[in-house]
């Protein structure tokens, strides 16, 4: 399925139809097409509007706490004996992950469009918390759709959302997880389209979402690129980031896409191993299909039914992936590898003990890939790993996995 694409400017995507070469697009029911057109038009104007950009940057600085630092994990690097691992500390943002970059941006768009009712889907609850947070910040109504299975697995985040004033709606259809929460949010949107804004949490969904969510997270890579030049006098040799839907990865990658000497590796959730079928590695093991409004790589059966995925990290447990990643894979600009649950857990422990940082299980996939690369590469090479979120939310999952009752 690898297609050869010759690309001169990676920043020229998507085109006016929301296409990243063969991927992306707008595969949605007619009822939602006019509001998507309205959103695209409004957003394209806002992204060029200095007042909007200033408003966004002000909140990133004073509310989110940006810029996030790049930290040189020296003890970990020394222990591995190879290349240097640098961590982009998105875990230090308000609410503890990169997700807030996007929810601030979209809430500002919603407010400017006069939409007061916000809906969102969430899997692990991180995007739900980030959405509930900005709704409280901007005084917007907030309804979060969450699979009934995930609600059971992520009770603390459910309560956090409620503390922030959100209504959490359990979704009992399908597999009762993230993709079904997304379906239900779409059904809400199609029903309440006049006054409702849908804050999608990743670089998936129909155009303009993959572009808009990328733009809001691209601050990560822009900052990192400048920080690398300032702190290290050069660009990194390779980037690593975890990929579920792929918002933190595209956020880091985007500013470096036209730097041909910077390699990029996305770490997908290989779960119990790709060969077991219990994984969420859409790019590494899926096929071309259409899901949630865009053409991308999906995990489905021969009848085209989307199948259940597995990952120890709920944030990577999604059967699709952002269309820009599909494009980067086919063009050869980035490569995507699977990291198993066990590898991610080992990386989590390694980072905790050598650097005193509890990484989110999602981000631990990126750390695991950085560790693999550090072992292979010489000491003078720089690996920049996106530490997209902090691991406090995962302490219960890890304890349960290791047979420890808290």
């Amino acid at each position: 399925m690898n297609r050869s694409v010759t690309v001169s400017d990676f920043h020229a995507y998507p085109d006016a139809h929301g296409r990243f070469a063969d991927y992306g697009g707008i595969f949605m029911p007619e009822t939602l097409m006019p509001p998507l057109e309205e959103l695209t038009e409004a957003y394209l104007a806002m992204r060029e509007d200095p007042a909007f950009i200033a408003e966004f940057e002000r909140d990133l600085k004073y509310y989110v706490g940006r810029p996030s630092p790049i930290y040189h994990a020296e003890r970990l690097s020394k222990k591995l004996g190879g290349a240097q691992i640098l961590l982009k500390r998105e875990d230090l943002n308000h609410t503890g992950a990169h997700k807030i970059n996007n929810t601030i941006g979209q809430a500002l768009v919603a407010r400017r469009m006069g939409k007061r009712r916000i809906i969102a889907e969430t899997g692990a609850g991180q995007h739900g918390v980030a959405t509930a947070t900005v709704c409280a910040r901007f005084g917007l109504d907030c309804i979060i759709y969450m699979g009934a299975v995930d609600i059971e697995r992520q009770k603390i985040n459910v309560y956090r959302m409620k503390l922030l004033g959100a209504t959490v709606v359990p979704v009992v259809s399908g597999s009762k997880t993230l993709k079904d929460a997304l379906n239900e949010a779409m059904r809400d949107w199609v029903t309440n389209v006049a006054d409702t804004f849908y804050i999608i949490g990743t670089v998936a969904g129909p155009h303009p979402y993959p572009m808009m969510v990328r733009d809001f997270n691209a601050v990560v890579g822009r900052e990192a690129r400048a920080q690398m030049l300032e702190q290290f006098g050069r660009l990194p040799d390779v980037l690593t980031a975890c990929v579920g839907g792929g918002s933190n990865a595209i956020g880091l990658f985007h500013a470096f896409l036209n730097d041909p000497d910077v390699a990029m590796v996305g770490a997908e959730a290989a779960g119990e191993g790709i060969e077991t079928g219990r994984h969420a590695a859409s790019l590494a093991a899926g096929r071309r299909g259409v899901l949630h409004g865009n053409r991308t790589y999906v995990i489905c059966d021969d009848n085209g039914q989307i199948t259940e995925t597995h990952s120890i990290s709920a944030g990577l447990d999604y059967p699709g992936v952002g269309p820009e990643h599909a494009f980067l894979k086919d063009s050869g600009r980035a490569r995507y590898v699977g990291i198993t649950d066990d590898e991610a857990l080992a990386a989590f422990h390694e980072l905790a003990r050598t650097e005193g940082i509890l990484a989110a299980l999602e981000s631990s996939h990126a750390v695991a890939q950085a560790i693999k690369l550090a072992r292979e590469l010489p000491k003078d090479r720089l690996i920049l790993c996106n530490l997209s979120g902090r691991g406090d939310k995962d302490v219960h999952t890890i304890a349960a996995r290791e047979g420890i009752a808290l």
Partner: protein
Amino acid sequence: MSHRIDRRFGDLRRAGRKGLIPFITAGDPLPEATVAIMHALVAAGADLIELGVPYSDPVADGPTIQHASERAIARGIGIARILGWVSEFRQVDSTTPIVLMGYLNPIEIFGYSRFADAASAAGVDGVLIVDVPVEEAETVAPLRAAGINEIFLVAPTTTDRRLSAIRAQAQGFIYYVSFAGITGASQLDTAAVRDRVAHIKQGGDMPVAVGFGVRDAATAVEIAASADAVVIGSALVACLAETGDIESAVAAAGAFLAPIRAALDASRS
């Protein structure tokens, strides 16, 4: 290529009758009942049959059709078997148009050219792919080339600019979604539908069928006052879901549809 759909709407127009379009989810409640239910629906007055292709993530559907899809998927129902049922139906009935309704991914995975050939050979007359708006119509070009009509949705939110683009691409008939919402919801506003249908028909002579929210003879008659045809889906699917064998499913299908047919015919002005 002759088009059963065009012929059927032409016949209806000449006879001064309104079209009745039942929707069933293929393979539900029992895979072995689907063809028999289709024949029963025709016997009870169906003018065209919409056969739902089950999909795991039906974002435009309410719980009734979601659950019917889940049951069919659990039985492994996919496009190949559904086309087999259409072929079987065609051995007996060569005049009733069949439109497959569903979502894009099952067709994308089946393969567009392969689907176009197989569906055409089986006797499928049209497809209504909920998540293929007019902008993405090129995606299913091989289906058109094989003589399969592409039916488009028009919604209450559709702008005039979009309506013109849809009219330019539409084949067979236009399916007007009666309200912004999911299938099976009860938000029907007959007066609003009448105005919108009149507006859609102003721009051409493409027949307009109205669906979403039509659930019984009374709502069908109200909608048929302005539309060329009415689509009834969730209410029929819910009725069939309560049956447990072929005989009762067939009986329920006929008993459900016949009074609606009678009411539509009685209301002819």
